[in-house]
């Protein structure tokens, strides 16, 4: 199947068709903010918002997830309520790319020292069967910086179907076999015309042109490694208040804590989002904290994204969605931190 065209008047029936096969998530309003919520009809979907306040990572990696419950009878893993796989509508390129990164951590087999492979069953159960309908961004925001990395406003990385919003219709193009199979089961759309293809290409090039000039991130990881002990961290972190707004809104931050909530002989073990911005994140039982200072914690966040992760997985752990920029209560702009680090490159100083 090639590109198909979905008349926006038929969007409602398309969502109904999709709902028959999948549990559908889409951007919607939740308590005044936008996030990806389970939807059943077109009315609940916010087609306007570009970058939702909360990232869609919570669909596959929820803030609080019960891993198992226990009592004297034994251990039980909670079962999903419906057996339907997940479909996500309206995910932007920054967010769909983030899922590929998270999948490297949770989904790909990691060779453990004892030669066992580890995969996270809770992630895999939700992610592997999911279908992502991603939407291109025609008018990127001033906080968007996906073009710094390997993304772009009309990038389809991490999507199963790429959707271009062409005003009165959506132009949908399958990216993966999974996406093709999902579209094959539906009928609300028509075949695309040559005009549609031209329109899609034009939207993509206009969107790309609407973005600010990217910073050159080549060699950023090595630069950071050389700056580990520099006073620059105190400088850039001076205003940080060490809340977790950036990490919790980030589509790629994935650190978590495991906590037990027990009463008597029963209880549950819960996985809960954690943040390297919190002092307790690294607090040791002895009372010693290797990252007691704000500057050490800010450094950790930057290093993990732009040095440690690329070293291990071959790409930056940042898709340039700009949520951390928007949400920060003190306007600590990660782009400015990276530009500050990059200044060293311009000065030709690379070694300490």
């Amino acid at each position: 199947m090639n590109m198909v065209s979905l008349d926006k008047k038929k969007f409602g029936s398309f969502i109904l068709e999709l709902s028959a096969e999948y549990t559908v998530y889409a951007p919607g309003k939740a308590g005044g903010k936008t996030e990806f919520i389970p939807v059943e009809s077109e009315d609940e979907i916010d087609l306007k918002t570009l970058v939702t306040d909360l990232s869609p990572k919570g669909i596959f990696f929820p803030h609080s997830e019960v891993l198992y419950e226990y009592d004297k009878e034994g251990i039980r893993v909670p079962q999903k309520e419906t057996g339907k796989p997940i479909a996500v509508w309206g995910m932007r390129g920054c967010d769909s790319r983030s899922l590929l990164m998270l999948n490297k951590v949770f989904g790909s087999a990691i060779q453990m020292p004892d030669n066992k492979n580890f995969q996270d069953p809770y992630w895999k159960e939700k992610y592997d069967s999911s279908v992502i309908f991603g939407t291109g961004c025609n008018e990127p925001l001033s906080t968007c910086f996906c073009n710094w990395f390997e993304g772009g406003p009309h990038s389809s990385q991490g999507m199963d179907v790429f959707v271009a919003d062409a005003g009165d219709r959506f132009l949908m193009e399958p990216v993966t076999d999974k996406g093709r199979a999902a579209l094959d089961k539906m009928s609300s759309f028509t075949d695309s015309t040559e005009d549609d293809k031209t329109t899609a290409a034009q939207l993509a090039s206009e969107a790309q042109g609407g973005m600010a000039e990217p910073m050159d991130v080549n060699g950023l990881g090595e630069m950071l490694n050389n700056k580990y002990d520099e006073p620059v961290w105190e400088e850039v972190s001076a205003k940080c208040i060490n809340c977790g707004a950036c990490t919790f809104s980030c589509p790629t931050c994935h650190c978590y804590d495991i906590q037990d909530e027990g009463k008597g002989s029963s209880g549950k073990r819960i996985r809960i989002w954690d943040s390297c911005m919190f002092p307790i994140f690294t607090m040791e039982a002895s009372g010693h904290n290797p990252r007691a200072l704000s500057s050490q914690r800010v450094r950790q966040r930057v290093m993990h994204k732009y040095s440690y992760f690329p070293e291990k997985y071959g790409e930056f752990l940042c898709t340039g969605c700009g949520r951390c920029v928007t949400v920060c209560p003190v306007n600590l702009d990660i782009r400015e931190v990276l530009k500050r680090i990059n200044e060293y490159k311009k000065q030709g100083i690379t070694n300490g």
Partner: protein
Amino acid sequence: MNTTDNLRKTIKTLVSEKKVDLFLGWEKGSLPLAATPLFVTTEEEADRAIFDVTCGNNLSIYFTKDKKQYADKKVGIAVKGCDARSVVLNILEKQIKRENVVIVGVPCNGVLDKKKVLAATEGREVLELMDNGDTVTVKGKGFELSLNRQEILSSSCHACIYPDAQEYDFFMGEARGEVPNEERVKEIVDFQNLPDSDRWEQTRVEYQKCIRCYACRNVCPSCYCNVCFVDQNDPKWIGSTCEYTDTVIFHVIRNLHVAGRCVECGACERACPMDINLLMMNRKVAMEVKDRFGDVAGLDIDGKPAMSDFKEDEKQKFIMG
């Protein structure tokens, strides 16, 4: 001379005459709707200081960050009326010494709440903002709007009685004096008059939004415990999930921990990424404290914080009924 020019000149003098090692102010940030904290140590840096409707941050949080990082330094600070009360409270609670702080008051006509601006632009991104006093102009792609200042002010500013610093070393312009504000308690009284079940429902809905990022706690100048109760895990006082049974407990306990200490600056509410109405409950407690103990947090540098003091004749409802 306008406030910003006046402020820059004062900071320059303080820095050049070595009256302060560091000055805490605001500068234009990377986004139009919020200024960003500025740390001035040189005269050149002083030229970046501003004061306008975007300067919402209460800078006194930095006194207690990283276990009183500036304890041995002389620090100057620019303050709105509410921020000044935080500085005073920090002094009364012996976190900083009065003689180590140079307080510079700015005449405040209120600071904006991002969500109200975005409501006015119907979600369209703002790329430029100009503070014209009674109006604020915002520009974006294909639009320009002139907004009435009152419509975009933070709810804390609508409830404000003391816009000027009551304790200061320098004041940058004309003080506004106390603002009579009959309407300030309306929201609270309306809430109080609801039936219990409605009050609970409203509270539950509000706190259910919480994602436990603790931005509210971390921007709060009165929240500076070395280890916050939510971070204690031996014993563990409270669950860490975002179920409302956990989030309500977090917010209610925080609310009570800042009783008689909350200066109602609204920083928590403006910082909240989930738009939780955090201020109403704090303001309710501040009302109670005023009513029972006659104390307004951080207003009187010669006073004692309500919770650190005891008077024989004070109203004790829980004993006397």
